[in-house]
């Protein structure tokens, strides 16, 4: 993967993101992936003059994740999307859609958790 990867933890993620903002980085997006059975890996992608930097954080899905939408307002859509797709909670989300950004109440399964495989439609 191109770019430098810095590992962060739940405790210092907001501080690290703040540091990136003060350095003049632009938040591109987050990416998520399944990490083990009940873990979630989050990559924060930053960009400064076409140079990419990533922050990597691994969390458990049942504990709330500190939100960085207070630092970068643009993070709010991504965090709501992650909330939809993985059913995790964010602490201090600026505008919380409460799992309804994309999904309607009819969809009860958690879309992206790997052990919930999608079945071909009948």
């Amino acid at each position: 993967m191109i770019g430098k990867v810095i590992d962060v933890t739940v405790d210092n993620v907001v501080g690290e993101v703040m540091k990136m903002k003060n350095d003049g980085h632009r938040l591109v997006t987050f990416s998520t992936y399944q990490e083990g059975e009940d873990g979630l890996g989050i990559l924060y992608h930053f960009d400064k003059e076409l140079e990419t930097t990533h922050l990597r954080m691994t969390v458990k899905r049942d504990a709330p994740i500190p939100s960085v939408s207070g630092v970068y307002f643009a993070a709010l859509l991504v965090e709501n999307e992650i909330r939809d797709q993985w059913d995790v909670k964010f602490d201090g989300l600026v505008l919380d859609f409460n799992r309804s950004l994309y999904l309607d109440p009819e969809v009860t399964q958690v879309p992206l958790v790997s052990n919930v495989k999608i079945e071909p439609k009948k």
Partner: protein
Amino acid sequence: MLFTPTVIKNLLKKPATRLYPFTVREPFPNYRGELYIDIDGCIFCGTCSRKCPSQCIEVDKNEGTWTCNPHACVYCGICRDSCPTKCLHMKDVHRKPMTERIMMVEKGEPPKPKKKAAAAEAPKAADKKAEPAKADDKKAEPATADKAKKK
């Protein structure tokens, strides 16, 4: 006011409209239009059904049927390109609208010498590991159910 020259030009020129249903334009030769099969050339190897991104083709080797759901087909031409006997073709005109959903079912001669067919199948099957085979089985079910519903 700056648009006036364009307006005047358009008034003096012939209309740009293609009078479609009355005059049909010459189709471009490699347009990916209606998919059809030359069933006599088909060896029922099932490559098209595995390669199809939309999973809309179903091949039954024992029965000798080739079934395609033209409503789910995305006209990408992958099946045509991967067909080993080049029996799948695409017309250069689009498929005509229909008032109800139909399935394309083509009945052909299933391959008689079983050994030869198996040999054609074997290298493909070797590529696919256990998991995709399962996926294929899974998708075969709903497709048949769909067909039954149509009938």
